């Protein structure tokens, strides 16, 4: 519109936080989850993850999410739902009209969640599509497939996540054109974004900031070393941090990924730590890149996220006394309203 009538509209100068795309790679390797069954079954982890995703969607209305399962023998989309899966569904149901499948365009919109007036619609759509696809993925897993490959398809999941991110980023309009590394433009170079050597120029981006979160349970990934390294370097070039949440397995490899790309690495190796999965997700992984500039991020030594003081894992969830509280009143109100009204999160699997 702005181009057509050459007017300068107010939206162009919005001073909002840029929307962020969170891509979660969930390692669904059945072997590894079976080993974790006592302390953290997959269903519980998924319930925690859904709360986390909802929180991400709630922070900014323009935030987006994508979930990819890195399964034993293939990598598959959990959200948004790919077209062929949707088509099968419409054929089975026979009732959903064709226009949905065409309009959906990879938003998972065509998979109709049950109507619930009390639930925020994006939550409902995401949850329904996610759970539905995960169930289908598990149902379609054959014993032979599990036996043949004890590992997980992390390289494929990462590559697909990156392809998706690059496409999403290129379709989002930006007010500053050169902010993102444009790989298809011959006049740009990797790592050479800062041609004018102006570090502040990136701050004005209104485009999509993306990050990848890998929830990993499998150990050995050595057979895909080159492919995973390729993806990691691509992330580094595009300045996409890879956050790692390691629930089990050998840490060396993914630690490198987080270190190279500037993401957060945390390993929950004890059952006690795994019990606090949601807290870890919310505290360590919820802030996006813009917020992370102002926070002290957790390191290997269990530093407090807010004040940087050392904490043992036992009192991790407590509020440190020295943190300045800016909006005391607002915080209280939210806490109150959460108790009485049926929140928009009703129906979400409750992490217990």
């Amino acid at each position: 519109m702005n181009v057509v009538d050459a007017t300068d509209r107010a939206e162009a100068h919005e001073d909002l936080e840029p929307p962020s795309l969170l891509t979660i790679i969930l390692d669904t390797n059945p072997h590894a989850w079976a080993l974790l069954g006592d302390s953290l079954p997959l269903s519980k982890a998924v319930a925690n993850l859904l709360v986390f995703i909802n929180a991400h969607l709630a922070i900014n209305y323009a935030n987006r999410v994508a979930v990819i399962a890195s399964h034993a023998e293939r990598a598959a989309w959990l959200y948004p739902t790919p077209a062929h899966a949707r088509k099968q569904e419409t054929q089975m149901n026979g009732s959903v009209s064709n226009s949905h499948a065409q309009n959906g365009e990879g938003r998972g919109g065509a998979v109709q969640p049950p109507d619930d007036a009390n639930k925020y619609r994006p939550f409902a759509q995401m949850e329904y599509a996610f759970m539905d696809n995960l169930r289908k993925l598990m149902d379609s897993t054959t014993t032979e497939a599990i036996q043949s490959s004890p590992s997980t398809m992390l390289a494929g999941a990462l590559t697909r996540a990156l392809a998706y991110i690059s496409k999403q980023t290129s379709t989002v309009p930006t007010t500053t054109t050169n902010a993102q590394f444009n790989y298809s433009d011959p006049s740009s170079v990797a790592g050479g974004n800062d041609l004018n050597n102006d570090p502040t120029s990136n701050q004005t981006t209104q485009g999509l900031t993306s990050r990848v979160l890998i929830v990993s349970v499998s150990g050995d990934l050595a057979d895909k070393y080159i492919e995973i390294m390729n993806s990691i370097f691509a992330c580094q070039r595009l300045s996409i941090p890879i956050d790692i949440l390691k629930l089990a397995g050998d840490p060396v490899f993914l630690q490198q990924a987080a270190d190279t790309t500037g993401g957060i690495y945390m390993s929950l190796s004890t059952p006690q730590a795994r019990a606090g999965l949601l807290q870890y997700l919310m505290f360590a992984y919820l802030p996006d890149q813009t917020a992370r500039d102002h926070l002290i991020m957790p390191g290997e030594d269990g530093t407090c996220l807010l004040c940087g003081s050392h904490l043992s894992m036992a009192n991790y969830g407590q509020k440190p006394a020295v943190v300045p509280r800016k909006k005391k009143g607002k915080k209280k109100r939210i806490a109150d309203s959460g108790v009485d009204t049926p929140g928009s999160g009703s129906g979400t699997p409750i992490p217990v």
Partner: protein
Amino acid sequence: MVSRPKDRVQARWEEAANRNWELQEGADGSIEGVLGGLEEAGKRKRLLKDTTPLQRGIIRHTLLVLDLSTAMNEKDLRPTRHLLTIKYTIMFVREFFEQNPISQLGILGMREGLAIRVSDMSGNPNDHISALKILRGTEPKGNPSLQNALDMARAALYHTPSHGTREVVIILGALLSSDPGDIHDTIKACIRDRIRVRIIGLAAQMHICAEICRKTNGGDENYYDVAIDEVDYKQQLMAITTPPVLRVTDADSSDTQGKNQSALLMMGFPSRIVEEKATLCACHGNLTRGGYLCSRCKAKVCNLPATCPTCDLTLILSTHLARSYHHLFPLRNWSEVSWSRARTKGTTQCYGCLSSFPAVPKQHEVANGTEHDQGAAKTKRAEGASESSRYECEACGDHFCIDCDVFCHEVVHNCPGCQSTVPADISEKTNGD
């Protein structure tokens, strides 16, 4: 005077020119038919490269020779040749060390008939960049001398180990070379020392440049080119950051110097340590709380890659080596997909990014289509672009959009399809190789 024939063949420089005014609209007034896929074809043109795995020289010793003569004051490249060269050279240095983390680079200049040293051979990009920034304030002067530059480069590369490559990259703005002696002797000496010379001209072709490049590259004529504009200049410069293919002659000459020496190279892979109290590092003498311990002598260095200051061991991280893997195992090119192929596969979405493809036309529409319609459909897409906007990886058979094609080949160097499924026959032929 012989008059020019009227229907003369298009000159080479004219071929690349795009004649927008000759575009014809279709009957319905759309120019999509004419432009169809021009953009996609352009994107793909850069992609379609040779993907045979080759032995490449990852440890490079490169000297960059910049022309600092009066010819660089020309303003045909904006703002001037000199300033643009410095700007691009800074980008080149960054990209070079990104692609070749264990290589060494040095920069020379040609000014007033002499060769001057801008920065010494070093593996640290910041040394070069700061030297280049100082150079920005100086004025180009006098004539260049190719012979002096080559002689100095030869001397600088003389002591480099035989397992690495020895390369000289010359950026030449002038159309002359004022040499003190016979340059052909210098060329012969360069060939003897296994030095490969590449020249990027900024003005016009020069015979002596072509000869230098041809002779030092074993008869290959692709190493000399003239940049036609800023974009072309940058592309040519950036193309040099890709590690060069090792030639048979390189292997032969290193054989004579000892087989074991060239085949294996001693390196240390230290791991990072975090200390309670700050200690001095061996490389700068600064107090730091972390660093890497040399695997042989336990000296602490702050940054990798580095050469251990105590025992001269090359210290790198495995990630530095892994950065070069995609040069060694390139991703196979994807092929265009015809409508009939798209119909049999029935793909509606890009496998990588889930964006929708244009729908496959109905079978009877194509069958009933008149002759000229089919002809139009054929000429509709530019060379290299797929008529169905789909691109197929031949290893896994999945279809991708043009953006994913470019992205996967230029950035990730992985095929999303091959990586996401276990190949039917468990062979090692993954990643489209």
